[in-house]
């Protein structure tokens, strides 16, 4: 297991290095330039470009960026005068993370539960009910779900606040809106996976041992059926993360999304770069955790050839 984790770790590290490099050059390849306002005279523009180091050759800038990055310095935002990018992240990320983690947990719990219930009631009312939820969930884009929930539960029924993030009641609607798609996706995968596992020989063997249906489901079926769900947790985390941008703006959550969008609109190199690298690293780490989780659930994964011999 230790070797498996070490290997995963190095792969993750390499991915992050590649990410930083690619993103750095890609952002610079975006057409246009910062400081293109009419209000700026050419001299001021020159000065600003020099101030931020943009007059130097690209590879020098790259090396300097990496050097700063290693010290945890993500540079300074050009748009929000002088604000450190790391500071922006530090202030806004907790909101995004709180929203994202709530949504992810909710999606996992509800999605897996729906999938199991659906599979156990195959062809009956509950199954169709879950399937319909799943289809609706997968077909509705985040922003539609977001506005819909807001309209029904905040404006019409007045059950929850319309927007902002000031306590548990405020978190309910955005969390539901953000998790709906993922819940539906996980429910579908879990249902299919459960149905497949139910037909496996070892389930029949478990029954022949005298286990009750509940014991079979709890000890053998769910454990095996959950493997495909764990596999897609990485991409799912990514989907939720990007979903936060939209949901944050609908519900006026003071998260990172707003800075990302403004960064791109203003071609704020350091802001876009910093946020992208932060997001990317976060995702790579999420995948790393998922890989390790997978190794714990599926013993076949965590052994490499040498151990097996």
């Amino acid at each position, binding site marked *: 297991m230790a070797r498996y984790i070490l290997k995963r770790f190095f792969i993750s590290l390499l991915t992050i290095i590649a990410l930083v490099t690619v993103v750095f050059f890609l952002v610079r390849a975006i057409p246009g330039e910062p400081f293109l306002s009419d209000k700026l005279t050419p001299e001021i523009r020159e000065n600003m470009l020099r101030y931020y180091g943009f007059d130097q050759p690209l590879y020098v800038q790259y090396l300097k960026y990496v050097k700063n990055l290693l010290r945890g310095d993500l540079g300074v935002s050009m748009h929000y005068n002088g604000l450190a990018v790391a500071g922006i992240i530090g202030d806004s990320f907790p909101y995004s993370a709180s929203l994202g983690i709530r949504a992810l947990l909710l999606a996992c719990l509800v999605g897996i539960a729906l999938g199991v219930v659906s599979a156990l009631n195959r062809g009956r009312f509950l199954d169709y009910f879950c399937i319909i939820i799943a289809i609706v969930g997968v077909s509705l884009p985040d922003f539609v779900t977001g506005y819909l929930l807001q309209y029904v539960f905040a404006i019409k029924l007045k059950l929850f606040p319309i927007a902002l993030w000031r306590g548990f009641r405020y978190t309910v609607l955005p969390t539901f809106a953000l998790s709906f798609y993922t819940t539906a996706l996980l429910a579908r995968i879990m249902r299919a996976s459960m149905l497949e596992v139910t037909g*496996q*020989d*070892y389930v*029949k*063997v*478990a*029954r*022949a*041992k*005298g*286990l*009750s249906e509940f*014991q079979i489901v709890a*000890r*053998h079926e769910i*454990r*095996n059926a959950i*493997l495909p769900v764990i596999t897609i947790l990485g991409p799912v985390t990514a989907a939720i993360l990007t979903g936060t941008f939209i949901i944050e703006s609908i519900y006026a959550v003071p998260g990172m999304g707003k800075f990302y969008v403004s960064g791109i609109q203003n071609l704020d190199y350091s802001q876009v770069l910093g946020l992208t690298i932060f997001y990317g690293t976060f995702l790579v780490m999420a995948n790393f955790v998922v890989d390790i989780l997978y190794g714990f*659930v*599926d*013993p*076949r994964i965590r052994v490499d050839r040498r151990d*097996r011999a």
Partner: protein
Amino acid sequence: MPLAVRDLEVSFRTYGGSVSAVRGVNLDVSEGECLAIVGESGCGKSVTAQTVMRLIPSPPAEIRGSVTMDGVELLALPEKRMKEIRGAKIGMIFQDPMTSLDPTMQIGKQIMEALTVHDRGLKPLAAADRVIEVLGMVGIPNPEKQFRRYAYEFSGGMRQRVVIAMAVICSPRLLIADEPTTALDVTTQAQILDLIRDLKTKLRTSVVIITHDMGVVANMADRIAVFYAGQVVEEGRSEDVFLNPSHPYTAALLMSRPSLDWDRGQKLASVPGTPPDLFAPPAGCGFFDRCAAAMEVCREALPEFFETENHEGVSHRSLCWLHHPSGKTELARWLSGGRGLKGEDSQC
């Protein structure tokens, strides 16, 4: 009598109609006896075995008849009571050891589960000790070390030993082995059969062993029941069925096996034709189309059982009109023709 199956009928409702997989089967297994069920693929062996364990969900299956164990009617038992019988009174070994084990659970735990589900008061340590003991009994070396291993770390033969350990850990009265060696190579096959025979004596359990290869059970079974198209067509002591097959299907089955005294270049006979369509079972004998000795009556009327021998009180019976008192000339012709197959018969 530990197990008695009476007039068992199992049919499956499918989109294409109803399949009669088992059509009126009677079987008896007595204390400490080994009964072999033999027959080609699709003749209803597994369905019969799994019906005894009530592993066939109904619906969609329709089950009629009776299965009793020590006088208790299993088919009418509430699921809760049936659960207490599965694994404890009847152990079952399945065909494919590669898929019979849960890939995500330590094999020791899987075996232990079979024990603790029937004996809730058992302390985990005592249960683990018993698992290790049984692992040793089924011939797994260093059982303490294997306890925490996973199925993928074992070869097919070793996995089948684990599956067997699971089936016998509660010392069941009856062990049903559904083609336990079909998925294994020849050497391993012999070892697994030896093991089952060994356990049968050690645990004094009755055994039902299912196979499509008569050779596999020749020196293991006390009695043989030959299945064909969902029916038992011949039944008797192992040696009687081997030496004196009295149903043309059994004879054909025996001739389709290679043996050591086979001449070089001699062709291995195969049973010509295919079994009848179980969506629409024939009115008469299911073997009619393929039978070398078929008579007019065989097409129209379902045969009855006729006793052909009786040694030591064990009846040798055959579901074939040849043994009807008025079929003597046909029977003699068939016997003198070497109980031949359909193709050969036409040459003489």
